[in-house]
């Protein structure tokens, strides 16, 4: 097998950086830092879209990169900070106590999940020049770590960020295997994400107003 081309190499490097940022979000105790890591991860998605647009002559992807950056690097972090950052940061600087496991255990489990995701997606046998298998396998690892983040954290903010980063992992998969998806549909996906962000934000705010914390530890009344 020869060395990867510019596109495949860039896709693999960007995917690896995104996975590292996912681990950063998992480890990070402060909400504002989690939001920053999410914005950085989202920016990498736009960079990858530009690389693919240039490499494969898909001009639609430039527009998608711009839209994605506007939404995920600017709008979503802004909405998140507005909805939960300011009022909460004055009272509660972070959600350090929100782990259901110790941070070390959470990271170890996430490494296991990432390995499982990497090898299971890697074994799919989706190999062609337009879909670098390594980047797809890393996207699979990100999906599992994002699920891990939603599960091991016991606060609504981290769970929401876990979901948004899951969406980033899916965007990475889409860029790797479905870069030609029509712009109209990609745009619809993005606006759908914006709608989800607003609804998540409203429910987080309602939860904070009611429980006076971001913790989900008391969301245990409904059972059976």
């Amino acid at each position, binding site marked *: 097998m020869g060395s990867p081309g510019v596109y495949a190499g860039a896709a693999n490097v960007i995917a690896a950086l995104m996975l590292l940022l996912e681990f950063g979000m998992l480890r990070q105790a402060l909400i504002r830092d989690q939001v920053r890591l999410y914005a950085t991860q989202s920016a990498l998605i736009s960079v990858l879209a530009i690389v693919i647009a240039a490499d494969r002559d898909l001009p639609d992807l430039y527009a998608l990169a711009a839209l994605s950056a506007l939404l995920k690097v600017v709008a979503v972090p802004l909405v998140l900070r507005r909805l939960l950052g300011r009022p909460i940061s004055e009272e509660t600087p972070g959600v350090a106590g929100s782990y259901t496991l110790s941070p070390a255990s959470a990271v170890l489990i996430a490494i296991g999940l990432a390995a499982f995701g990497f090898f299971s997606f890697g074994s*799919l046998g989706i190999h062609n020049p337009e879909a670098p298998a390594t980047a797809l396998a890393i996207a699979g690892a990100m999906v599992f770590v994002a699920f891990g983040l939603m599960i091991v954290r016991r606060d609504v903010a981290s*769970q929401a960020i876990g979901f948004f980063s899951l969406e980033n992992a899916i965007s990475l998969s889409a860029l790797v295997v479905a870069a030609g*998806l029509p712009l109209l*549909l990609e745009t619809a996906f993005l606006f*759908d994400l914006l709608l989800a962000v607003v609804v998540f934000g409203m*429910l987080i705010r*309602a939860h904070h107003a009611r429980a006076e914390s971001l913790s989900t530890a008391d969301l245990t009344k409904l059972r059976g």
Partner: protein
Amino acid sequence: MLGVMLALLVVPLIAGIVCFLGPARPAAGLTVASGIACFGLVLALIPEVAHGTVGYLSYLRADALSGVFLLATAFLYAAVAVYAAGYLHGRTDVYRRRFYLGFNVFAWAMLAAPLMGSLALLWIAIEITTVVSALLVAIEDTDGAAEASWKYVLIASAGLGLALLATIFAYYAGAQVLGVHSNLAIGPLIQAGGRLPATPVRLAFLLAVLGYGTKVGLFPVHTWLPDAHSEAPTPVSALLSGALLATSFYAILRFYQVASAALGTGFPRDALLAFGIASLLLASLYVFGQRDVKRFLAYSSVEHMGILAIGVSFGAPIALAGVMLHVLAHAAAKGNAFMGAGVFTIKYRTKQMLAMRDGLDRLPWSGPLFLLSVLALSAFPPSGIFRSEFQIVAGGLSSGSYVAAAALIVLVTVAFFGLATSATGMLLTSPPEPSAEVPARGEPSAWMVVPVLAGVAVLVLLGVHPPGELTELITRAAAQLGGTA
């Protein structure tokens, strides 16, 4: 017919916006008018889609399969809109404006989903149902509603993330045959059939079952469902259970069509059988011992979604026709049951079944109607569910799936005992002490009885003699699912 389809995509949306921006008083009437108009529009569409496919480019598509789900949703939208007029009596104007905005937009998204011509647009419509219905679950502003809505939006959104991944792999598979500018249009993907690469299609189908299955309420991704159904306002619970679960199942069926065409029917049927049996087993056991009447009905919904999955896995034409009939009959029966349960919760001011006693006497209309609804859900003749389950079991036996058919019969019987025990306790048992506080005899509102009567009439019609046009629709939809139309 394009005009009818466009009208279906416009009427509920406009109704919702006008209800929110306009005065609160006419909102109920406007929503009822919108519900009835949509039901009429779907009825106008049925003769056309019972014999062929109508659509516009790759964006809009209506065929017999989508017609069945449109009919279930439109009927329930109209019936529950009438019910809501009574249920919301005494609520503030602000609450009613918010409720009717969400209610109409929720119905709009559910009506839009079966009209979408591509898997991508279908995903978007179903995602919209999630975000809107999560806000409707939260609208009661109680601790329970806040908890249920958070669990719902998080779990369902994560599930839909997997469904999006399924959509992306379906695109990848389609692009190998149809070119990179293919747009996930349903028709061409089914027609591409065996030319599609097997691995991405297999992965897409599994992810779709798991992802959309979260919204359907299939085990083990059903955990949001009892909470959301029990904490939502009752009209929303009725729509969630009778229409939303089925609409999400419709998305699985579209992936099933693609997967069956590409891989053959073995793998998709096995996957659905496993999820269906597990869901039915869980639900039939959990129906026992439920104390909250709406959680009790929610587990019944998991049971019926399991029956749908098992029915599709049998694959025989009669079983597939039974599945289509079951979608319609379950919408009517579960809508009725939730509407009846809503009357009980208002009358007794609690959702606890142990505190609801002597319902047959205290609620002269809603008591007997609730009993009929529960009997219908338990597949008593002459309800449509008896007919549909009979067809599904017959299909299982005719296709040689003897063990699965036997398991279906046993588990449905177990669920029947759970349903019957709890319902008869509510309806026929006297209060434990004569001095216990019992509400006065009478109905809270006639608006909350009329739609349930309509639902009973529909159930009997479906069970005894479905109209000819409907039978043609169901037969064609079953043929589409079976890959013969």
